[in-house]
């Protein structure tokens, strides 16, 4: 049985802000299904009382002195912008 449907794949693509064609949706459905089926072998393991590891080193919050430091200059930050205006990043209309 398929673990993931083509509708789910299209929904995930939308969440990930990817435009995919119907052809790609079909391909991803097959490939993600294979990978997820493979990943389900993890269910063989009882992890009821196992804590999750998000980070391998035993570190907690790392703080620095609360002293203001200069940020990057505005011209530098805008240097790679695909579009800009009046010292700001310019984007297409948000509302149609």
């Amino acid at each position, binding site marked *: 049985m398929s673990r993931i449907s083509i509708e789910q794949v299209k929904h995930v693509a939308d969440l990930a*802000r990817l*435009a995919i064609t119907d052809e*790609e949706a079909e391909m991803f459905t097959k490939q993600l299904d294979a990978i997820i089926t493979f990943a389900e072998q993890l269910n063989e393991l009882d992890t009821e009382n196992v804590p999750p590891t998000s*980070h391998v080193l035993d570190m907690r919050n790392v703080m620095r002195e609360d002293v203001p430091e200069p940020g990057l200059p505005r011209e530098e930050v805008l240097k790679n912008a*695909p579009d800009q205006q009046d010292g700001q990043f310019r984007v297409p209309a948000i509302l*149609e």
Partner: protein
Amino acid sequence: MPLFDHTVSELHTLLQKKEVSISDLVDESFRRIGEVEEKVQAFLTLNEEQARAKAKELDDQLAKGEETNPLFGLPIGIKDNIVTKGLRTTCASKILYNFDPIYDATVMERLHAAGTITVGKLNMDEFAMGSSTENSGFQLTRNPWDLERVPGGSSGGSAAAVAAGEVPFSLGSDTGGSIRQPAAFCGVVGLKPTYGRVSRFGLVAFASSLDQIGPITRTVEDNAYLLQAIAGVDPMDSTSANIPVPNYVEALTGDIKGLKIAVPKEYVGEGVEEGVRQSVFEALNVLEKLGATWEEVSLPHSKYALATYYLLASSEASANLARFDGVRYGYRTDNAKNLIDMYKLTRSEGFGAEVKRRIMLGTFALSSGYYDAYYKKAQKVRTLIKRDFENVFEQYDVIIGPTTPTPAFKIGEKTNDPLTMYMNDILTIPVNLAGVPAISVPCGFVDGLPVGLQIIGKHFDESTVYRVAHAFEQATDYHKQKPVL
């Protein structure tokens, strides 16, 4: 003898004695690039003009006789996911085809302080996602030992450039094997340091809990010199460890008497090609003659590492790659009418197939209703895998096995099936999940293709890893073999 057949310390001596100049070294790098790059195609961007100018400047400093850093004046290649101020950095992705970084990664600042000269930026799998460098958005890099084969990946350009003699050494990055696997395939030395040993500031993030920058070199000693220059805590990376950096070169004593080696049965069993297995057992014989002992052990959760890795790395990637949206830098589509369309089309046109696949997998694993079943489950299994290593390291000094199940495969051989490609990393991935350091050193040839020996150490014990790798290297001559190009 070609200049780059010399070790780092030999080159340093030649410079100090004025037998060669820094400009000679930079000339040699570009001469060799001119000679072989058409075949190997390791570089995405060359930095010729600036490198030559820098060489002149450093030659003047050298003449004053004050520069003693062992790396001073040496040319280096940098993987293209490490940001270099004023030098195009693409991650081998069309989405960053024109990206001109406005600051240097911390490792670059440290290399500049040591006096290295950046020759160019090296090809890779797009955003470091891949095991063959075939996922580059720009070009195919070829294995210098056999141009029909892949150099490995994702740091394929970094390993191929060193193997081809284009640079004496390079930097790569390793999330699931991306330094060690190409080092093995190209017959060079590659180290993934302990997670937190080297600052990740300025390394374009793939999977932040796994990524580490590390050196690719021709000898173990060279590797130790390069790690020395880049290791240490960095206020710009809160995951860099505030633990003193030892003198790695001093650790290369050649003495491994009484060393206790663990050989996981899972690393030499099914799926590992016979020639590779033989090379590893011959290497263990060499180490035994040097006074070490080895025993078979078990890392029982090894078989779950691959699934764990793909869920975690893809989840982290899906979050990290959200920043590529066409707003602040890189590619932007011309075809969008509104903001959401602009995001979607920019990303769809800018990312390659493997990157999209992993973003999709990661987004799915993190999405509502699936988070506990996939992402959190994988985090728990990661704990079990980490404990496997802790248990073995209670009784042994290092863990040894092959770096890869097979030598370099042919271009195009595994591109159709993502899972088959992923299987290639089965022996390197557990190391990233546990966060421990590991090196790949040349340990033989199968049908003319290099084989890598993987030596895994305890957290922050790169010194022991280097000591063992160096003792093995000095007792063998695999590292002296060069591909004919």
